[in-house]
């Protein structure tokens, strides 16, 4: 609170000062608030020793944002509290305080931010500071950002700052610049072109002191990136290539190998048809502002996932997490709209989505460990276009969405997933799996989902999900039923049950029930849930966290103004 008062005073004084300048324009103040809490119940079925059962019994966490804007001026603060951190979230968040405060203004074409800010260059492979609260991910900068457009079609950005690690800061300093050229704005002759062309480049450098007794660690590590983006009427093509200098770290076991990554996305859309193809190759591209950091801490860049994130409960138990040390693969997705009135589309037409994604290691030939110098300088040898030896993930899914009549829509989805549990959960490296392919614990999963949406009467909807998942590995077969009843716009009732009837452990052939009630009014939302949650992995955009098993009553409140 002692920290909060000066900041609020500062905001009020600032607003008053600007109000004077703008002749009684007091600007606008907006905010939002969220609180999540859970009362945990001891459940010996899912946690026989009680190792996940918290001493506090009740854990709660939340935040409130306050943003003031007046013309070209903005300022904001965020208060966060984790008392204590809920199960599954990074324990480093334990505590409370002001984590985010900034002022920003534009003057003479220059946009200045001082304090905390989020930023992204290109696809994010060079630099991306962002927040994903559901993961507990927040790598914002605390520093200064300048954005300047010296001429139409050219945008320059420059930043310097330190990154957030929970309630502290990463030891490294990040300096970065980025330029984006939009050719259609730069050249008059291209102004009316239906195709938009742009290209850009970034340079990012981090500094961290080094005092290792064994290694000559680089204190400054640079990364450069080039990208282009072409968007036509029906098609689009964008690509980014990133190259990083020697960056020994905990992630790559202190090898001095250079890093590089290429990401290419192609899209095509026409009436009734859409296609997306993404290709990616990543080699040694972990880039953190603390060379000794791990998990989600201090990441400067972000390597996008080229796999589909599933929202249905059972297939989402086997998600893909981007492998920063190296991966290659891609994704193809086709959306087909079957016209109404056709034999297949029926009276209302149908939507079919086909998706295929694959990811493997890059091809690697490791140096003999007795060759110390090459091992530490390069780690391994590789070939760009040779498929990697270790399969990481493969996903084929097809979805059929059909409206039967005004009140009834059904969706059927089939998933076929191959999941390398050794890589994606156990963190096993490529080297032992290349030497011994049987070391890879593969999980082969087939899942079917049927979803029905029924309009009972005006404002009353019932959504039903039936899911069945079959695998001979890991936790075995599961079945699930979900019923969601909503009364628009205020009420929402859900009840579901997952039954892990095929678990190889007889004691774990159990049910995971979940029920929740949501009430919304205006911009405020209340939720109360009760349920048993099985161990899982929660991912957003290729970044994942492990969720331990739990049982209890949860509450959630969100509000904005």
């Amino acid at each position, binding site marked *: 609170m002692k920290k909060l008062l000066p900041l609020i005073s500062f905001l009020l004084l600032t607003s008053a000062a600007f109000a004077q300048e703008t002749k009684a324009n007091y600007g606008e103040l907006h905010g939002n608030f969220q609180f999540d809490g859970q009362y945990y119940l001891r459940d010996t079925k899912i946690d026989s020793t009680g190792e996940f059962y918290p001493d506090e019994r009740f854990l709660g966490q939340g935040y409130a944002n306050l943003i003031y804007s007046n013309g070209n001026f903005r300022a904001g603060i965020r208060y966060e509290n984790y008392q204590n951190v809920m199960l599954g979230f990074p324990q480093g968040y334990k505590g409370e305080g002001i984590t985010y405060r900034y002022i920003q203004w534009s003057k003479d074409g220059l946009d200045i931010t001082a304090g905390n800010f989020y930023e992204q260059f290109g696809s994010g492979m060079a630099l991306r500071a962002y927040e994903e609260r559901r993961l507990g991910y927040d790598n914002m900068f605390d520093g200064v950002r300048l954005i300047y457009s010296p001429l139409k079609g050219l945008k320059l950005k420059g930043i310097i700052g330190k990154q957030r*690690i929970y309630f*502290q800061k990463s030891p490294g300093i990040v300096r970065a610049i980025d330029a984006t050229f939009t050719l259609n704005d730069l050249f008059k002759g291209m102004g009316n072109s239906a195709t938009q062309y742009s290209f850009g480049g970034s340079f990012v450098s981090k500094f961290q002191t080094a005092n290792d007794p064994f290694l000559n660690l*680089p204190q400054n590590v640079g990364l450069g990136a080039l990208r282009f983006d072409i968007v036509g009427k029906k098609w689009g093509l964008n690509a980014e290539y990133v190259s990083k200098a020697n960056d020994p770290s905990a992630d790559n076991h202190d090898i001095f190998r250079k890093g590089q990554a290429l990401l290419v996305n192609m899209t095509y859309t026409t009436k009734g048809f859409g296609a997306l193809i993404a290709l990616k190759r990543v080699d040694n591209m972990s880039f953190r502002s603390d060379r000794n950091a791990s998990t989600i801490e201090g990441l400067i860049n972000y390597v996008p996932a080229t796999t589909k994130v599933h929202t249905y409960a059972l297939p989402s138990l086997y998600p893909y997490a981007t492998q920063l040390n190296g991966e290659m693969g891609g994704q193809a997705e086709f959306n087909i709209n079957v016209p109404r009135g056709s034999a297949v589309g029926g009276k209302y037409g149908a939507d079919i989505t086909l998706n295929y994604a694959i990811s493997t290691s890059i091809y690697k030939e490791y140096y003999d460990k007795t060759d110390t110098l090459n091992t530490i300088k390069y780690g391994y040898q590789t070939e760009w276009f040779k498929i990697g030896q270790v399969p990481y993930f493969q996903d084929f899914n097809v979805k059929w969405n059909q409206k039967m009549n005004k009140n009834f829509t059904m969706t059927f989805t089939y998933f076929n997933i191959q999941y390398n549990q050794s890589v994606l959960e156990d963190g096993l490296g490529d080297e032992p799996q290349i030497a011994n392919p049987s070391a890879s614990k593969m999980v082969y999963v087939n899942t079917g989902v049927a979803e029905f949406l029924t309009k009972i009467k005006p404002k009353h909807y019932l959504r039903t999900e039936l899911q069945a998942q079959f695998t001979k590995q890991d936790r075995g077969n599961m079945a699930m039923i979900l019923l969601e009843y909503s009364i628009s716009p205020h009420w929402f009732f859900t009840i579901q049950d997952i039954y892990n009837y095929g678990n190889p452990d007889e004691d774990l052939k159990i049910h995971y029930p979940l029920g929740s009630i949501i009430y919304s009014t205006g911009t405020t939302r209340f939720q109360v849930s009760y349920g048993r949650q099985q161990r899982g992995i929660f991912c957003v955009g290729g970044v994942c966290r492990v969720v331990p098993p739990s049982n209890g009553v949860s509450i959630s409140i969100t509000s904005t103004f």
Partner: protein
Amino acid sequence: MKTFIKFFSIIILLVSFAACDVIDNPLKEGGTRPPVDSTVVVRKVIIEDFTGHRCKNCPYAAEKIHELQDVYGKNVIGIAIHEGPSNFTGTNADYPTDFTTDDGKTIYDFFKIPALPMGMVSRIDYTGTGTSHLKTYSGWPAISAGLLDSVAHIKLEALVGYESSTRTVTVDVAATALIDFSDDLKVVVMILESGIVSPQLMPDDTRNANYIHQHVLRKAFTQAMGDELALSPILTGAIHTKQIIGTVDAAWVADNCDIVVFVYNDRTKEILQAEQLALIP
């Protein structure tokens, strides 16, 4: 406008060319440190290595301690604390030895260890929240080197007496303040056992049935988070003594046991000085 563009361009060029170190020779030549002047009190370093026999990356951390001890000898003291999620530390038919201890759990819970392998180097950077005190093993060498180069604020002397018939150990501790302290000091006395042959999951996902576990925490003879040694204010030159008595469990091989003593600042939790002595010299 032109001035601004020029200014911006210069900044870009400066950042581009100045901020990247390309290393041609990653390995430092020489490696070992010069002999330490025996008249200077060396600040010894403790690495608490949170580990598990079913944690496949944990042998990397153990190896890092051994590398440091090869260079710095007894000035770097390793403590293997087997504690963490049961899938890393639990027992089963393949990994039958229970290395976990109540004292290890107390330390693990207090410092909120989120993952294995993870360590603390003399418990520096503890703030009561966050994870800055938690160090991955790749960072241990640099931190240890920095601490060994720092000035010691405590001179620590310990004397170990062992009565084999009763398996009783008596540890006499004398800590001399080399600066004034405005914080309280605590002392911890632990017993470690080395040379324990028991299975360990290895980084290549294989089980090494003959893995030799070193410097395993067996018990703290003080409270796990220490006993009171001196209350502030503490003046330079003040000597504080403590006698700690413990019993060596019959299951532990006395010849392979060491006594570790360390003194830490109760406010910052930073370990200021440490000693390691063989139970049976």
